[in-house]
C-alpha cells in the first residue's frame, strides 16, 4: 500500500560561521496508512527536526534537502498556500507544551471552530457545534462550558486534550505528536496515551509518536525507529525491537528503562558518556565512543543502514536476534 508519509534522504543543516551543522542526516522513513510509528532518541538526536522540516516549520536559517511526500505530493518544495491547505487538515501536529500552544486571548471554542471554518468551509455556527462534539470525544468534561473558556482556565492535561481535539477536527490522515506527554505528570500521561489510542482506532489515521521515553512509545507504536546523532540507527516492528534490539544503542537504552518486577536496584542504569555535539564529525559510527561492542572498524567506517528481513539496523556488529 502507498505510504501516507514518505521521507527520503532528508537532511537538515544549519550554516554556522565555520561549518555546516548537520542536525539530520540522510533520514528515510515511511508511514503506512493507519500505522503508528514511534520515534525514539535522546535530546538533540534530530527526531523533532525531521518532522518540523516535513511540516515546513523550520526557521529560514535551516537548509533542508531530500524529499518529503505526503499522500503522494511533495511538501518540501510546495508553496506556502498549498502547504497551508494540508497543514491543520490532513496533516496535523501537536507539541510538547500544551501550556503555550494555544493563543492566550481567544476562547477555546473559537480556536477550534476556526480550523473548521478555514479548512472545511463550515459556517461559524456549525463549526461551534462540531467543536463541542470534538471536546466531548477527547473526553473534556463539561465541554459546553469549556468552549467559552480561555486557555489559562484549563489544566495542562485538559489543554493537551484540546490540542489533540483540534488536530483531529478535519479527520487527518496523519497526526504527528511531538512528545505529547513530556510536560504532563505521569497519571495524565497515561490518560493522554489512552486517548491517542482510542481516537486513532476511531478514524483510522496514521500516527507518528515522537518521544525520548520507550514506555510511552511501547504501548502505542506498531513500528519503532531509533535515532542517534541525526541518523536512523535501527527500525523494526515494536515487538521485535523491544524484545530483541539489534543495535547496541537500542539495547543500552532499553536497559535504562526502570521495571517494576525484578530485584530493586541501588542505582538506575545509565548510558555512559555524551552524544556527539552537532558539528562534531567522525568518520565512523557516531555511537562508537559509547558503545560496549565498538571495534576499530566502528571508529573508521560508518555503518550503513542495512535491510534484513523486516528490520533495518546501522551497525557493523549487530546483536543477533
Amino acid at each position, binding site marked *: 500500500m502507498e505510504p501516507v508519509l514518505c521521507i527520503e534522504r532528508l537532511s537538515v543543516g544549519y550554516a554556522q560561521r565555520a561549518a555546516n551543522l548537520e542536525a539530520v542526516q540522510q533520514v528515510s522513513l515511511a508511514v503506512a496508512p493507519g500505522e503508528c510509528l514511534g520515534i525514539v532518541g535522546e535530546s538533540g538526536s534530530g527526531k523533532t527536526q525531521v518532522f518540523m522540516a516535513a*511540516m515546513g516549520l523550520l526557521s529560514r536559517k535551516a537548509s533542508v534537502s531530500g524529499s518529503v511526500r505526503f499522500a503522494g505530493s511533495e511538501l518540501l518544495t510546495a508553496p506556502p*498556500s498549498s502547504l497551508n491547505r494540508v*497543514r491543520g487538515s490532513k496533516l496535523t*501536529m501537536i507539541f510538547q507544551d500544551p501550556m*503555550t500552544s494555544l*493563543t492566550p486571548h481567544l476562547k477555546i471554542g473559537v480556536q477550534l471552530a476556526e480550523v473548521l471554518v478555514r479548512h472545511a468551509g463550515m459556517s461559524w455556527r456549525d463549526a461551534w457545534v462540531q467543536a463541542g462534539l470534538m471536546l466531548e470525544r477527547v473526553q473534556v468534561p463539561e465541554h459546553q462550558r469549556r468552549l467559552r473558556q480561555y486557555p*489559562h482556565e484549563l489544566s495542562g492535561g485538559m489543554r493537551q486534550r484540546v*490540542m489533540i481535539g*483540534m488536530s483531529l477536527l478535519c479527520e487527518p490522515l496523519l497526526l504527528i505528536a511531538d512528545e505529547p506527554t513530556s510536560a504532563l505528570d505521569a497519571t495524565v500521561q497515561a490518560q493522554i496515551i489512552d486517548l491517542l489510542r482510542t481516537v486513532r482506532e476511531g478514524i483510522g489515521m496514521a500516527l507518528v509518536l515522537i518521544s525520548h521515553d520507550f514506555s510511552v512509545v511501547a504501548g502505542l507504536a506498531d513500528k519503532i525507529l531509533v535515532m542517534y546523532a541525526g541518523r536512523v540507527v535501527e527500525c523494526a516492528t515494536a515487538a521485535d525491537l523491544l524484545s530483541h534490539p539489534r543495535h547496541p544503542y537500542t539495547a543500552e537504552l532499553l536497559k535504562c528503562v526502570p521495571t517494576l518486577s525484578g530485584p530493586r536496584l541501588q542505582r538506575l542504569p545509565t548510558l555512559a558518556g555524551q552524544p556527539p555535539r552537532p558539528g562534531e564529525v567522525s568518520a565512523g559510527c557516531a555511537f562508537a565512543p559509547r558503545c560496549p561492542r565498538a571495534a576499530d572498524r566502528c571508529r573508521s567506517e560508518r555503518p550503513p543502514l542495512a535491510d534484513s528481513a523486516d528490520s533495518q539496523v546501522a551497525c557493523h556488529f549487530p546483536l543477533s536476534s
Partner: protein
Amino acid sequence: MSGLAGEAIRRFKENRAAVIALLAISVVVALALVGPWINPNDIETLDWRHLGSPPGAQGAHWFGTDRLGRDLFARTLAGTRVSLGIGLVASVMSLCVGVGYGAVSGYRGGRIDNVMMRIIEILSGLPLIFFVILLTVIFGRNENLLFISIGAVGWLTMARIVRGQAMSIRQREFIEAAVASGAGAGRIIVRHVIPNVIGPVIVYATLMVPQIILFESFLSFLGLGVQEPRASLGTLIAEGAGEMEAASWILLVPGGFLAILLLSLNIVGDGLRDALDVKES
C-alpha cells in the same frame, strides 16, 4: 464578566485616580464638543464694553475676556478642540499604520524587516520642526499642515514598539501551532500577533496623546501652527504669557485646561498599563 477585557476593566475601576482622570477627560471633551451651543459668545467677536475683564465679573463672559474683548471660554474650548483633534489624528495614525507596519515587520523578520525599519529610521531622522517649517514655506500657512506633519511622524515610535513585541511573540509556541494548523502569515498577524500586543499599544497611545498635544502647543506658541483669529491652547497660552502680570486669567484658563487634559491622560495611561498588565494564567 470572565473575559480578559472584563478582568482589565475591573482592575481599572479599582484604580480611583484613573477613574477620576477618565471622568475629567470626559468632561473636558464634552465641553469642547458642546461648547458652541452652551456659550452664546463666539471666538472672534470683539466686546468693546468688556476689554480684558476678569472671570465672572460680567455675566456674559464666564471666564472673562482677553485684551481685545474676545470671550476666553469660547476661545479656550476652540483651542481644546484643535488640541484634541491633533491628538486624535496622531493616535489613529499610530494605531492603524504604526501597529500594522510594526506587526508585519516584526513577524516577517529578515530582509522585509530590514527594509521596513530603515524606512522608519529615515522618516524619524527628519527633524520635525524643520519639516513643519518646510511645509509652511511650500504650502503657506495652513492649519491642516499641522495635522499632516504630526500624522506623518506620529506612528513611527508605535511601529518600533509593536515590532519589538511581534518579534518576541513570533517565537512563542502558539504561533508555531498556528502555522502547523495551516494559517497563513496575514491571518497569523491579524489573529495571533496583534491581539497579543494590544496592551502595550493602548498604553503607549494614551501616553502619546499628551506629548502630541504639547508639541502642537509648542508649534503654535512659535507661530507655526494655528493662526489668529483661530485659537489653539498653545496660541492662547502664548498670548496669556504676555499679559501674565496684569491679567493672569488669560494665561490661567487655557493653561488650566491644558494641565487638566495632560495630567488626566497621563494618569489614565498609567492606569491602563496596570490594568492591562496580564500575568499569563
